[in-house]
Protein backbone atom coordinates (compact mmCIF):
# COMPACT_ATOMS: atom_id res chain seq x y z
CA UNK A 1 0.00 0.00 0.00
CA UNK A 2 2.73 2.35 1.07
CA UNK A 3 4.70 1.51 -2.03
CA UNK A 4 1.71 2.27 -4.21
CA UNK A 5 1.25 5.83 -2.88
CA UNK A 6 4.98 6.28 -3.34
CA UNK A 7 4.80 5.31 -6.99
CA UNK A 8 1.77 7.53 -7.54
CA UNK A 9 3.65 10.48 -6.05
CA UNK A 10 6.66 9.61 -8.19
CA UNK A 11 4.40 9.48 -11.22
CA UNK A 12 2.98 12.90 -10.44
CA UNK A 13 6.43 14.39 -10.03
CA UNK A 14 7.57 12.70 -13.22
CA UNK A 15 4.74 14.07 -15.32
CA UNK A 16 5.01 17.47 -13.70
CA UNK A 17 8.67 17.68 -14.76
CA UNK A 18 8.00 16.34 -18.24
CA UNK A 19 5.10 18.71 -18.84
CA UNK A 20 7.02 21.72 -17.53
CA UNK A 21 9.85 21.06 -19.96
CA UNK A 22 7.37 20.59 -22.80
CA UNK A 23 5.79 23.94 -22.03
CA UNK A 24 9.20 25.59 -22.02
CA UNK A 25 9.82 24.16 -25.47
CA UNK A 26 6.43 24.68 -27.03
CA UNK A 27 5.57 28.20 -25.88
CA UNK A 28 8.58 30.03 -27.37
CA UNK A 29 8.41 28.06 -30.61
CA UNK A 30 4.69 28.69 -30.99
CA UNK A 31 5.28 32.34 -30.27
CA UNK A 32 7.82 32.38 -33.09
CA UNK A 33 5.53 30.57 -35.54
CA UNK A 34 2.53 32.73 -34.69
CA UNK A 35 4.81 35.77 -34.94
CA UNK A 36 5.45 34.94 -38.58
CA UNK A 37 1.77 35.67 -39.22
CA UNK A 38 1.66 38.91 -37.26
CA UNK A 39 2.20 42.36 -38.67
CA UNK A 40 5.45 44.09 -37.81
CA UNK A 41 3.44 46.48 -35.68
CA UNK A 42 1.97 43.71 -33.59
CA UNK A 43 5.25 41.86 -33.09
CA UNK A 44 6.69 45.03 -31.63
CA UNK A 45 3.70 46.08 -29.59
CA UNK A 46 3.51 46.63 -25.87
CA UNK A 47 2.12 44.78 -24.01
CA UNK A 48 3.29 41.85 -26.13
CA UNK A 49 0.73 39.45 -27.52
CA UNK A 50 0.81 35.70 -27.90
CA UNK A 51 -2.02 35.02 -30.35
CA UNK A 52 -2.26 37.21 -33.39
CA UNK A 53 -4.90 39.90 -33.77
CA UNK A 54 -3.66 40.78 -37.21
CA UNK A 55 -3.26 37.60 -39.27
CA UNK A 56 -1.23 38.31 -42.42
CA UNK A 57 0.84 36.49 -45.03
CA UNK A 58 2.82 39.60 -45.93
CA UNK A 59 5.91 38.40 -44.10
CA UNK A 60 6.20 35.37 -46.35
CA UNK A 61 5.68 37.43 -49.46
CA UNK A 62 8.31 39.89 -48.34
CA UNK A 63 10.68 36.99 -47.74
CA UNK A 64 10.03 35.53 -51.17
CA UNK A 65 10.51 38.84 -52.93
CA UNK A 66 13.87 39.41 -51.29
CA UNK A 67 15.59 36.03 -51.40
CA UNK A 68 15.46 33.15 -53.84
CA UNK A 69 13.87 30.74 -51.40
CA UNK A 70 13.44 27.77 -53.78
CA UNK A 71 17.00 27.91 -55.07
CA UNK A 72 18.37 28.11 -51.54
CA UNK A 73 16.25 25.20 -50.38
CA UNK A 74 17.54 23.08 -53.27
CA UNK A 75 21.12 23.89 -52.33
CA UNK A 76 20.46 23.14 -48.70
CA UNK A 77 18.93 19.79 -49.63
CA UNK A 78 21.90 18.83 -51.81
CA UNK A 79 24.32 19.86 -49.09
CA UNK A 80 22.46 18.09 -46.28
CA UNK A 81 21.63 14.88 -48.15
CA UNK A 82 25.06 14.61 -49.78
CA UNK A 83 26.92 15.10 -46.53
CA UNK A 84 24.69 12.71 -44.65
CA UNK A 85 24.80 9.88 -47.18
CA UNK A 86 28.60 9.78 -47.19
CA UNK A 87 28.89 10.53 -43.48
CA UNK A 88 26.81 7.52 -42.49
CA UNK A 89 29.09 5.16 -44.40
CA UNK A 90 32.39 6.69 -43.33
CA UNK A 91 31.58 7.29 -39.69
CA UNK A 92 29.82 4.02 -38.95
CA UNK A 93 32.69 2.08 -40.57
CA UNK A 94 35.18 3.86 -38.35
CA UNK A 95 33.01 3.54 -35.26
CA UNK A 96 32.63 -0.17 -35.93
CA UNK A 97 36.39 -0.69 -36.14
CA UNK A 98 37.07 1.21 -32.92
CA UNK A 99 34.37 -0.68 -31.08
CA UNK A 100 34.95 -4.25 -32.20
CA UNK A 101 38.48 -4.66 -33.49
CA UNK A 102 41.79 -4.85 -31.72
CA UNK A 103 44.51 -3.50 -33.91
CA UNK A 104 47.87 -1.90 -33.55
CA UNK A 105 47.62 1.85 -33.13
CA UNK A 106 43.95 1.77 -32.17
CA UNK A 107 44.50 4.04 -29.19
CA UNK A 108 46.52 6.44 -31.29
CA UNK A 109 44.02 6.60 -34.15
CA UNK A 110 41.09 6.99 -31.82
CA UNK A 111 42.72 9.79 -29.86
CA UNK A 112 43.73 11.34 -33.16
CA UNK A 113 40.08 11.27 -34.21
CA UNK A 114 38.88 12.58 -30.87
CA UNK A 115 41.39 15.41 -30.90
CA UNK A 116 39.80 16.86 -34.02
CA UNK A 117 36.63 17.28 -31.97
CA UNK A 118 38.48 19.56 -29.57
CA UNK A 119 39.45 22.16 -32.13
CA UNK A 120 37.12 25.12 -32.41
CA UNK A 121 35.92 25.28 -35.99
CA UNK A 122 36.28 29.04 -36.04
CA UNK A 123 40.01 28.61 -35.65
CA UNK A 124 40.70 26.16 -38.44
CA UNK A 125 38.11 27.40 -40.88
CA UNK A 126 40.47 29.69 -42.74
CA UNK A 127 43.20 27.08 -43.36
CA UNK A 128 40.42 24.59 -44.02
CA UNK A 129 39.07 26.87 -46.68
CA UNK A 130 42.54 27.18 -48.19
CA UNK A 131 42.75 23.41 -48.53
CA UNK A 132 39.40 23.30 -50.27
CA UNK A 133 40.46 26.13 -52.53
CA UNK A 134 43.73 24.44 -53.46
CA UNK A 135 41.88 21.23 -54.26
CA UNK A 136 39.76 23.18 -56.73
CA UNK A 137 36.53 22.57 -54.84
CA UNK A 138 35.73 26.22 -54.18
CA UNK A 139 32.13 27.09 -55.05
CA UNK A 140 31.23 23.48 -55.77
CA UNK A 141 28.93 21.08 -53.97
CA UNK A 142 31.91 18.77 -53.37
CA UNK A 143 33.71 21.58 -51.60
CA UNK A 144 30.71 21.98 -49.33
CA UNK A 145 30.25 18.29 -48.66
CA UNK A 146 33.54 16.39 -48.49
CA UNK A 147 35.28 18.33 -45.70
CA UNK A 148 32.22 17.97 -43.47
CA UNK A 149 31.80 14.20 -43.85
CA UNK A 150 34.15 12.74 -41.26
CA UNK A 151 33.00 13.90 -37.84
CA UNK A 152 34.70 12.71 -34.68
CA UNK A 153 31.52 13.06 -32.66
CA UNK A 154 29.61 10.76 -35.03
CA UNK A 155 32.40 8.18 -35.00
CA UNK A 156 32.31 8.30 -31.23
CA UNK A 157 28.55 7.83 -31.23
CA UNK A 158 28.69 4.86 -33.59
CA UNK A 159 31.46 3.35 -31.52
CA UNK A 160 29.23 3.55 -28.46
CA UNK A 161 26.40 1.89 -30.38
CA UNK A 162 28.51 -0.98 -31.72
CA UNK A 163 30.09 -1.64 -28.34
CA UNK A 164 26.77 -2.64 -26.90
CA UNK A 165 26.35 -5.63 -29.26
CA UNK A 166 27.06 -9.21 -28.10
CA UNK A 167 30.17 -10.93 -29.43
CA UNK A 168 28.17 -14.06 -30.44
CA UNK A 169 26.56 -12.25 -33.36
CA UNK A 170 29.88 -11.67 -35.04
CA UNK A 171 31.21 -15.14 -34.31
CA UNK A 172 28.13 -16.80 -35.73
CA UNK A 173 28.46 -14.78 -38.92
CA UNK A 174 32.14 -15.63 -39.21
CA UNK A 175 31.33 -19.33 -38.93
CA UNK A 176 28.79 -18.83 -41.69
CA UNK A 177 31.69 -17.70 -43.83
CA UNK A 178 30.88 -14.02 -44.25
CA UNK A 179 33.75 -11.64 -45.03
CA UNK A 180 34.62 -8.75 -42.74
CA UNK A 181 32.65 -6.21 -44.78
CA UNK A 182 29.78 -8.65 -45.01
CA UNK A 183 29.69 -9.00 -41.25
CA UNK A 184 29.73 -5.25 -40.86
CA UNK A 185 27.17 -4.50 -43.52
CA UNK A 186 24.77 -7.44 -43.26
CA UNK A 187 24.91 -8.35 -39.59
CA UNK A 188 26.23 -5.56 -37.42
CA UNK A 189 24.95 -2.41 -39.09
CA UNK A 190 21.28 -3.45 -39.00
CA UNK A 191 21.67 -4.05 -35.25
CA UNK A 192 22.37 -0.38 -34.63
CA UNK A 193 19.68 0.92 -36.92
CA UNK A 194 18.42 3.37 -34.31
CA UNK A 195 21.87 4.86 -33.88
CA UNK A 196 22.15 5.16 -37.66
CA UNK A 197 18.82 6.98 -37.80
CA UNK A 198 20.07 9.20 -35.01
CA UNK A 199 23.21 9.90 -37.01
CA UNK A 200 21.21 10.63 -40.15
CA UNK A 201 18.99 13.12 -38.39
CA UNK A 202 21.84 14.83 -36.58
CA UNK A 203 23.89 15.04 -39.76
CA UNK A 204 21.08 16.37 -41.92
CA UNK A 205 20.24 18.80 -39.18
CA UNK A 206 23.83 19.92 -38.73
CA UNK A 207 24.34 20.71 -42.38
CA UNK A 208 20.89 22.18 -42.83
CA UNK A 209 21.56 24.75 -40.12
CA UNK A 210 25.26 25.22 -40.84
CA UNK A 211 26.06 28.85 -41.37
CA UNK A 212 29.76 29.64 -41.47
CA UNK A 213 31.11 26.90 -43.68
CA UNK A 214 28.73 27.39 -46.64
CA UNK A 215 29.27 31.11 -46.35
CA UNK A 216 32.99 30.58 -46.92
CA UNK A 217 33.00 27.83 -49.52
CA UNK A 218 29.90 28.69 -51.53
CA UNK A 219 30.02 32.41 -51.97
CA UNK A 220 28.33 32.37 -55.36
CA UNK A 221 24.74 33.58 -55.11
CA UNK A 222 23.58 30.47 -56.94
CA UNK A 223 25.29 28.23 -54.38
CA UNK A 224 23.89 29.90 -51.29
CA UNK A 225 22.06 27.74 -48.75
CA UNK A 226 18.88 28.64 -46.94
CA UNK A 227 20.63 29.27 -43.63
CA UNK A 228 22.91 31.73 -45.40
CA UNK A 229 20.10 33.44 -47.19
CA UNK A 230 18.27 33.96 -43.93
CA UNK A 231 21.32 35.31 -42.19
CA UNK A 232 21.69 37.87 -44.98
CA UNK A 233 18.10 38.82 -44.41
CA UNK A 234 18.43 39.17 -40.67
CA UNK A 235 21.72 40.97 -41.16
CA UNK A 236 20.26 44.01 -42.81
CA UNK A 237 20.53 47.28 -41.04
CA UNK A 238 16.91 47.62 -40.13
CA UNK A 239 15.87 44.18 -39.01
CA UNK A 240 12.40 43.13 -40.09
CA UNK A 241 11.15 40.80 -37.42
CA UNK A 242 8.09 39.60 -39.30
CA UNK A 243 10.03 38.51 -42.36
CA UNK A 244 12.81 37.06 -40.20
CA UNK A 245 10.26 35.00 -38.28
CA UNK A 246 8.76 33.86 -41.57
CA UNK A 247 12.25 32.87 -42.71
CA UNK A 248 12.83 30.96 -39.50
CA UNK A 249 9.56 29.08 -39.99
CA UNK A 250 10.46 28.24 -43.58
CA UNK A 251 13.84 26.94 -42.46
CA UNK A 252 12.39 24.81 -39.68
CA UNK A 253 9.56 23.26 -41.70
CA UNK A 254 11.55 20.82 -43.90
CA UNK A 255 13.52 19.62 -40.88
CA UNK A 256 10.30 19.14 -38.98
CA UNK A 257 8.90 16.91 -41.72
CA UNK A 258 12.07 14.82 -41.84
CA UNK A 259 12.06 14.59 -38.10
CA UNK A 260 8.44 13.51 -37.81
CA UNK A 261 9.24 10.83 -40.39
CA UNK A 262 12.38 9.77 -38.52
CA UNK A 263 10.71 9.81 -35.12
CA UNK A 264 8.97 6.58 -36.09
CA UNK A 265 12.35 4.94 -36.58
CA UNK A 266 13.63 5.92 -33.18
CA UNK A 267 11.08 3.49 -31.92
CA UNK A 268 11.13 0.87 -34.64
CA UNK A 269 14.89 0.77 -34.81
CA UNK A 270 14.91 -0.66 -31.36
CA UNK A 271 12.06 -3.10 -31.82
CA UNK A 272 13.50 -4.66 -34.95
CA UNK A 273 17.02 -4.96 -33.61
CA UNK A 274 16.22 -8.38 -32.21
CA UNK A 275 18.02 -7.47 -29.03
CA UNK A 276 15.05 -6.88 -26.86
CA UNK A 277 14.29 -10.46 -26.01
Amino acid at each position, binding site marked *: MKEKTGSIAAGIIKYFVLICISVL*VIIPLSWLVIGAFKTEKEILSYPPTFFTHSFTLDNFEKLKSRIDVYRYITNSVIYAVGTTAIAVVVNSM*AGYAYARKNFKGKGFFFLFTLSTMMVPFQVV*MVPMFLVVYKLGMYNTYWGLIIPRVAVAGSI*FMMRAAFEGLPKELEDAARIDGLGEFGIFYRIMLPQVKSAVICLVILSINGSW*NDLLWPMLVASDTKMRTLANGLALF*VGQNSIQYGASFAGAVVSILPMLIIYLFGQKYFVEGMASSGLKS
Partner: protein
Amino acid sequence: MKKIKKILHSADGSAYYFIFPSIILLLVFNVIPLVFSFVLSFCNANMTLDHVDFAGISNFTKAFTDSRFLNSLKVTALFAVIEVPIQTFGAMIIAAMINKNTAGNKFFRAVYFLPVICSATAIGIMWKMILHSNVGFFTYMIQMAGMGRINYFNDPKITLFVVAFISIWRSFGISAIVYVTAIQNVSSSIYEAAEIDGANKLQQFINVTVPSIRPTFWYILMTRLAGSLQIFDIVYMTTGGGPNFTTESTVTYVYTRAFSANSEMGYASAMSFVLFVMIMIITVLLYRRMNAED
Protein backbone atom coordinates in the same frame (compact mmCIF):
# COMPACT_ATOMS: atom_id res chain seq x y z
CA MET B 1 54.27 -7.45 -48.34
CA LYS B 2 52.63 -10.76 -47.75
CA LYS B 3 52.68 -10.14 -44.04
CA ILE B 4 50.89 -6.83 -44.45
CA LYS B 5 48.31 -8.48 -46.66
CA LYS B 6 47.79 -11.14 -44.07
CA ILE B 7 47.26 -8.57 -41.35
CA LEU B 8 44.76 -6.69 -43.46
CA HIS B 9 42.86 -9.87 -44.13
CA SER B 10 42.68 -10.94 -40.52
CA ALA B 11 39.52 -10.17 -38.60
CA ASP B 12 41.17 -7.44 -36.53
CA GLY B 13 43.53 -6.20 -39.20
CA SER B 14 40.66 -5.35 -41.50
CA ALA B 15 40.02 -2.48 -39.13
CA TYR B 16 42.48 -0.45 -41.16
CA TYR B 17 40.14 -0.60 -44.13
CA PHE B 18 37.31 0.57 -41.93
CA ILE B 19 39.07 3.55 -40.47
CA PHE B 20 40.96 4.53 -43.62
CA PRO B 21 38.39 6.95 -45.16
CA SER B 22 37.76 8.80 -41.94
CA ILE B 23 41.44 9.08 -41.12
CA ILE B 24 42.28 10.49 -44.55
CA LEU B 25 39.43 13.00 -44.46
CA LEU B 26 40.23 14.12 -40.94
CA LEU B 27 43.89 14.42 -41.87
CA VAL B 28 43.30 16.55 -44.94
CA PHE B 29 40.50 18.74 -43.67
CA ASN B 30 41.18 18.97 -39.95
CA VAL B 31 44.74 18.12 -39.04
CA ILE B 32 46.53 19.92 -41.86
CA PRO B 33 44.56 23.11 -41.18
CA LEU B 34 45.30 22.64 -37.50
CA VAL B 35 49.04 22.39 -38.11
CA PHE B 36 48.78 25.41 -40.36
CA SER B 37 47.15 27.46 -37.65
CA PHE B 38 49.67 26.14 -35.11
CA VAL B 39 52.46 27.56 -37.25
CA LEU B 40 50.47 30.76 -37.55
CA SER B 41 50.34 31.12 -33.77
CA PHE B 42 54.08 31.87 -33.80
CA CYS B 43 53.61 34.63 -36.35
CA ASN B 44 52.07 38.03 -36.61
CA ALA B 45 49.60 37.78 -39.44
CA ASN B 46 46.51 39.57 -40.61
CA MET B 47 43.42 38.00 -42.09
CA THR B 48 44.60 38.30 -45.67
CA LEU B 49 47.78 36.47 -44.63
CA ASP B 50 49.81 38.68 -46.92
CA HIS B 51 51.93 40.09 -44.10
CA VAL B 52 53.27 37.18 -42.07
CA ASP B 53 56.26 37.75 -39.77
CA PHE B 54 57.76 35.36 -37.29
CA ALA B 55 56.91 36.46 -33.78
CA GLY B 56 58.34 33.74 -31.57
CA ILE B 57 56.31 33.03 -28.47
CA SER B 58 55.20 36.63 -28.08
CA ASN B 59 51.60 35.77 -28.92
CA PHE B 60 51.51 33.27 -26.07
CA THR B 61 53.03 35.60 -23.53
CA LYS B 62 50.61 38.29 -24.67
CA ALA B 63 47.67 35.94 -24.13
CA PHE B 64 48.47 35.40 -20.48
CA THR B 65 48.65 39.10 -19.77
CA ASP B 66 45.52 39.93 -21.77
CA SER B 67 42.79 40.43 -19.18
CA ARG B 68 40.07 39.91 -21.77
CA PHE B 69 41.49 36.50 -22.66
CA LEU B 70 41.82 35.46 -19.03
CA ASN B 71 38.27 36.66 -18.42
CA SER B 72 37.09 34.61 -21.38
CA LEU B 73 38.68 31.46 -19.94
CA LYS B 74 36.82 32.08 -16.70
CA VAL B 75 33.54 32.61 -18.55
CA THR B 76 34.06 29.45 -20.59
CA ALA B 77 34.86 27.34 -17.54
CA LEU B 78 31.84 28.69 -15.69
CA PHE B 79 29.64 28.01 -18.67
CA ALA B 80 30.85 24.40 -18.88
CA VAL B 81 30.29 23.92 -15.15
CA ILE B 82 26.68 25.04 -15.55
CA GLU B 83 25.90 23.24 -18.77
CA VAL B 84 27.70 19.88 -18.72
CA PRO B 85 26.17 18.35 -15.56
CA ILE B 86 22.67 19.28 -16.67
CA GLN B 87 23.27 17.85 -20.11
CA THR B 88 24.85 14.60 -18.94
CA PHE B 89 22.86 13.77 -15.80
CA GLY B 90 19.70 15.75 -16.34
CA ALA B 91 19.17 14.33 -19.80
CA MET B 92 19.86 10.82 -18.48
CA ILE B 93 17.15 11.11 -15.86
CA ILE B 94 14.69 12.55 -18.38
CA ALA B 95 15.59 9.75 -20.80
CA ALA B 96 14.90 7.16 -18.13
CA MET B 97 11.45 8.70 -17.68
CA ILE B 98 10.55 8.53 -21.36
CA ASN B 99 12.31 5.41 -22.63
CA LYS B 100 9.21 3.19 -22.77
CA ASN B 101 7.40 3.37 -26.07
CA THR B 102 4.08 4.64 -24.82
CA ALA B 103 2.16 7.25 -26.78
CA GLY B 104 2.82 9.86 -24.12
CA ASN B 105 6.54 9.23 -24.09
CA LYS B 106 6.71 9.41 -27.86
CA PHE B 107 5.03 12.78 -27.62
CA PHE B 108 7.51 14.06 -25.05
CA ARG B 109 10.43 12.78 -27.11
CA ALA B 110 9.11 14.50 -30.20
CA VAL B 111 8.68 17.76 -28.32
CA TYR B 112 12.08 17.72 -26.64
CA PHE B 113 13.78 17.20 -29.94
CA LEU B 114 12.08 20.18 -31.60
CA PRO B 115 14.67 22.82 -30.60
CA VAL B 116 17.44 20.66 -32.05
CA ILE B 117 16.11 21.14 -35.57
CA CYS B 118 16.07 24.93 -35.36
CA SER B 119 18.99 26.96 -36.60
CA ALA B 120 21.02 29.15 -34.28
CA THR B 121 19.77 32.17 -36.23
CA ALA B 122 16.14 31.27 -35.52
CA ILE B 123 16.78 30.44 -31.86
CA GLY B 124 18.83 33.57 -31.35
CA ILE B 125 16.25 35.96 -32.76
CA MET B 126 13.44 34.15 -30.94
CA TRP B 127 14.95 34.23 -27.44
CA LYS B 128 16.24 37.73 -27.91
CA MET B 129 12.75 38.99 -28.53
CA ILE B 130 10.99 36.79 -25.97
CA LEU B 131 13.38 37.74 -23.19
CA HIS B 132 13.78 41.34 -24.31
CA SER B 133 14.34 43.56 -21.30
CA ASN B 134 11.38 45.72 -22.19
CA VAL B 135 9.03 44.39 -24.86
CA GLY B 136 9.73 40.67 -24.37
CA PHE B 137 6.78 38.29 -24.06
CA PHE B 138 8.25 36.22 -21.21
CA THR B 139 9.58 39.31 -19.50
CA TYR B 140 6.07 40.69 -19.53
CA MET B 141 4.42 37.45 -18.35
CA ILE B 142 6.91 37.09 -15.48
CA GLN B 143 6.24 40.67 -14.49
CA MET B 144 2.49 40.09 -14.63
CA ALA B 145 2.98 37.04 -12.43
CA GLY B 146 4.42 39.41 -9.85
CA MET B 147 8.01 38.28 -10.06
CA GLY B 148 9.37 41.66 -11.10
CA ARG B 149 11.01 42.69 -14.31
CA ILE B 150 14.13 40.68 -14.92
CA ASN B 151 16.72 42.10 -17.28
CA TYR B 152 17.78 38.78 -18.79
CA PHE B 153 20.32 40.04 -21.30
CA ASN B 154 21.75 43.06 -19.50
CA ASP B 155 22.44 41.94 -15.96
CA PRO B 156 26.05 40.80 -15.53
CA LYS B 157 24.97 38.52 -12.71
CA ILE B 158 22.47 36.44 -14.63
CA THR B 159 23.12 36.77 -18.34
CA LEU B 160 25.59 33.87 -18.46
CA PHE B 161 22.94 31.65 -16.89
CA VAL B 162 20.44 32.81 -19.50
CA VAL B 163 22.90 31.94 -22.27
CA ALA B 164 23.55 28.55 -20.67
CA PHE B 165 19.82 27.99 -20.41
CA ILE B 166 19.32 28.73 -24.12
CA SER B 167 22.21 26.44 -24.98
CA ILE B 168 20.75 23.62 -22.88
CA TRP B 169 17.27 24.34 -24.23
CA ARG B 170 18.63 23.96 -27.72
CA SER B 171 20.52 20.69 -27.37
CA PHE B 172 19.32 18.66 -24.40
CA GLY B 173 16.94 16.94 -26.81
CA ILE B 174 19.87 15.27 -28.56
CA SER B 175 21.35 14.06 -25.29
CA ALA B 176 17.99 12.73 -24.15
CA ILE B 177 17.25 10.89 -27.39
CA VAL B 178 20.73 9.37 -27.53
CA TYR B 179 20.22 8.12 -23.97
CA VAL B 180 16.79 6.75 -24.84
CA THR B 181 18.30 4.80 -27.72
CA ALA B 182 20.97 3.41 -25.43
CA ILE B 183 18.54 2.50 -22.66
CA GLN B 184 16.28 0.71 -25.12
CA ASN B 185 19.24 -1.35 -26.27
CA VAL B 186 19.80 -2.70 -22.77
CA SER B 187 18.65 -6.32 -22.80
CA SER B 188 15.39 -6.64 -20.91
CA SER B 189 16.51 -9.98 -19.48
CA ILE B 190 18.84 -8.07 -17.15
CA TYR B 191 15.89 -6.06 -15.84
CA GLU B 192 13.88 -9.22 -15.41
CA ALA B 193 16.70 -10.72 -13.39
CA ALA B 194 16.89 -7.58 -11.27
CA GLU B 195 13.16 -7.63 -10.73
CA ILE B 196 13.29 -11.20 -9.52
CA ASP B 197 15.96 -10.07 -7.06
CA GLY B 198 13.38 -7.57 -5.77
CA ALA B 199 14.97 -4.37 -7.06
CA ASN B 200 12.59 -1.42 -7.37
CA LYS B 201 12.53 0.99 -10.31
CA LEU B 202 15.09 3.33 -8.81
CA GLN B 203 17.45 0.51 -7.90
CA GLN B 204 17.03 -0.92 -11.39
CA PHE B 205 17.98 2.44 -12.85
CA ILE B 206 21.09 2.78 -10.73
CA ASN B 207 22.24 -0.84 -10.84
CA VAL B 208 21.19 -1.90 -14.31
CA THR B 209 20.56 1.06 -16.60
CA VAL B 210 23.44 3.30 -15.61
CA PRO B 211 26.20 0.67 -15.89
CA SER B 212 24.74 -0.65 -19.16
CA ILE B 213 24.77 2.69 -20.92
CA ARG B 214 28.25 3.68 -19.84
CA PRO B 215 29.66 4.09 -23.39
CA THR B 216 26.80 6.46 -24.17
CA PHE B 217 27.38 8.35 -20.95
CA TRP B 218 31.00 8.90 -21.94
CA TYR B 219 29.96 9.93 -25.40
CA ILE B 220 27.57 12.57 -24.05
CA LEU B 221 29.99 13.77 -21.42
CA MET B 222 32.88 14.22 -23.81
CA THR B 223 30.95 15.75 -26.69
CA ARG B 224 29.07 18.12 -24.41
CA LEU B 225 32.25 19.11 -22.63
CA ALA B 226 34.05 19.77 -25.89
CA GLY B 227 30.98 21.59 -27.18
CA SER B 228 30.52 23.82 -24.16
CA LEU B 229 34.19 24.72 -23.98
CA GLN B 230 33.81 25.92 -27.56
CA ILE B 231 30.54 27.76 -27.03
CA PHE B 232 30.17 30.35 -29.76
CA ASP B 233 27.02 30.62 -31.83
CA ILE B 234 24.45 31.12 -29.07
CA VAL B 235 26.62 33.81 -27.51
CA TYR B 236 27.11 35.37 -30.88
CA MET B 237 23.42 35.42 -31.76
CA THR B 238 22.19 36.70 -28.39
CA THR B 239 24.57 38.75 -26.24
CA GLY B 240 27.65 39.12 -28.41
CA GLY B 241 29.71 38.69 -25.24
CA GLY B 242 28.02 41.41 -23.21
CA PRO B 243 27.11 42.84 -20.83
CA ASN B 244 30.53 43.98 -19.77
CA PHE B 245 32.15 40.85 -21.27
CA THR B 246 30.46 38.55 -18.75
CA THR B 247 29.40 36.16 -21.52
CA GLU B 248 32.41 36.53 -23.77
CA SER B 249 33.62 32.95 -24.17
CA THR B 250 37.09 32.13 -25.40
CA VAL B 251 35.99 31.19 -28.90
CA THR B 252 33.92 34.37 -29.14
CA TYR B 253 36.95 36.42 -28.19
CA VAL B 254 39.22 34.46 -30.52
CA TYR B 255 36.75 35.03 -33.34
CA THR B 256 36.63 38.76 -32.61
CA ARG B 257 40.41 38.99 -32.67
CA ALA B 258 40.70 37.00 -35.88
CA PHE B 259 37.96 38.63 -37.94
CA SER B 260 37.57 42.19 -36.75
CA ALA B 261 38.63 45.32 -38.61
CA ASN B 262 42.24 44.77 -37.66
CA SER B 263 42.60 41.03 -37.67
CA GLU B 264 45.27 39.37 -35.60
CA MET B 265 45.27 35.86 -37.02
CA GLY B 266 48.48 34.87 -35.28
CA TYR B 267 47.28 36.00 -31.88
CA ALA B 268 43.89 34.37 -32.41
CA SER B 269 45.59 31.09 -33.32
CA ALA B 270 47.79 31.27 -30.25
CA MET B 271 44.81 31.80 -27.96
CA SER B 272 42.89 28.98 -29.52
CA PHE B 273 45.88 26.72 -29.01
CA VAL B 274 45.90 27.48 -25.35
CA LEU B 275 42.22 26.49 -25.30
CA PHE B 276 42.89 23.43 -27.43
CA VAL B 277 45.64 22.19 -25.10
CA MET B 278 43.35 22.64 -22.10
CA ILE B 279 40.53 20.71 -23.74
CA MET B 280 43.00 18.04 -24.84
CA ILE B 281 44.32 17.52 -21.31
CA ILE B 282 40.82 17.16 -19.92
CA THR B 283 39.90 14.76 -22.71
CA VAL B 284 42.95 12.55 -22.27
CA LEU B 285 42.26 12.31 -18.54
CA LEU B 286 38.63 11.39 -19.21
CA TYR B 287 39.66 8.95 -21.93
CA ARG B 288 42.01 7.15 -19.51
CA ARG B 289 39.25 6.96 -16.97
CA MET B 290 36.88 5.61 -19.59
CA ASN B 291 39.33 2.92 -20.67
CA ALA B 292 40.03 1.99 -17.07
CA GLU B 293 36.32 1.37 -16.61
CA ASP B 294 36.15 -0.77 -19.73
